[in-house]
């Protein structure tokens, strides 16, 4: 079949339809939608984390005083609060990401689809392990 085939022909005549408009606030209408938008918003906090990280690196490269100032800045209650929220969002990101993994990637083994729970479980286990490794490097002083 060729590509330029016309779509199925329909009669042109039709009555007036009612076309509801989607509200700008559609994502407030249902909890799953709100959850979705929150999940997407988590990316902003991911970006914020990068900002903090870059500030840390800059402070490190500028010497101990600069770094001490950076550490004080981190103790600013507003920043702490912001980071608390950020933590909530990045954890939210991580859990939604792992929970959706089986759907996004149908892994097959020996002809059968690997059960969702196993994939999710593996992800969480890896998350724990990686977190420990990172912490081990950082906490050792």
């Amino acid at each position: 079949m060729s590509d330029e085939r016309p779509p199925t022909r329909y009669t042109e005549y039709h009555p007036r339809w009612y076309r509801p408009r989607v509200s700008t606030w559609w994502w407030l209408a249902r909890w799953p939608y709100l959850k979705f938008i929150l999940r997407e918003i988590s990316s902003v906090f991911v970006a914020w984390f990068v900002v903090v990280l870059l500030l840390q690196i800059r402070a490190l490269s500028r010497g101990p005083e600069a770094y001490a100032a950076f550490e004080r800045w981190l103790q600013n209650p507003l920043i702490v609060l912001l980071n608390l929220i950020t933590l909530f969002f990045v954890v939210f990101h991580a859990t939604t990401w792992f929970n959706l993994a089986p759907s996004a990637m149908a892994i097959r083994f020996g002809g059968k689809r690997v059960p969702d729970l196993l994939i999710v479980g593996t992800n969480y286990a890896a998350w724990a392990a990686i977190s420990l490794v990172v912490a081990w490097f950082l906490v050792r002083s």
Partner: protein
Amino acid sequence: MAETISLEVLRYSPERDAEPSFQTYDVPLRKDWVVLDALNYIKDKVDGSLTFRWSCRMGICGSCGMMVNGEPKLTCATFLSNYANENKPVRVQPLRYFPVIRDLVVEVTDFMTKLQSVKPWLIREKEKPVSDGEYLQTPDQLDRYKQFSMCINCLLCYAACPVYGLDPVFIGPAAIALAQRYNMDSRDEGAHERMDVLAQHEGIWGCTFVGECTKVCPKHVDPAGAIQQYKLTATIERFKTFLMPWAAR
């Protein structure tokens, strides 16, 4: 259980109304009644002009999809008694995001055109004559696409997908899942042809993995999964043609 239950049904007649409005009906509440039975009761006994689609009443023809209390549902598989204790009328509306023709009937030719655009049929480079028997396919191979072949085209997933609502050019969950149903079929050789349609912004890239399509699907098709998996395939293909331009078609 109360004797009756109220239904708040959206009414719209293009000839009469500028805007839709709700009409409330009281119907008997029976344990084995689904929302569709209530609508039929109204049509038969109270108001013959109430308009909706239905046919099989066993969840397979896909024609009775509506919004029940804001959720896309097959009305032949949604019991009234589930709503009996909420002390407010059950709200029945036409499927969201589609133009309304009348009352609970929505316009779906848009989907029909999209379905056709993804070439949901088996594409072979060379047909084998029927006299040579079947194309072999093991149960495992069948299993790879079976889930995606269960779609009854009820369009609940479209009514759940905000991306479709915001941007109706989006090909949408069911059509992409059906394309994927053929792509994953061991007998099919048309994946490249379909890629042209699917690997576009209106195709898979428009989807932001809201995931509601999968949650409302009454047949467990998992269109969200189909789309994500296809994104991966399309990406791999893209890198292949980038790294090995000579291997491109």
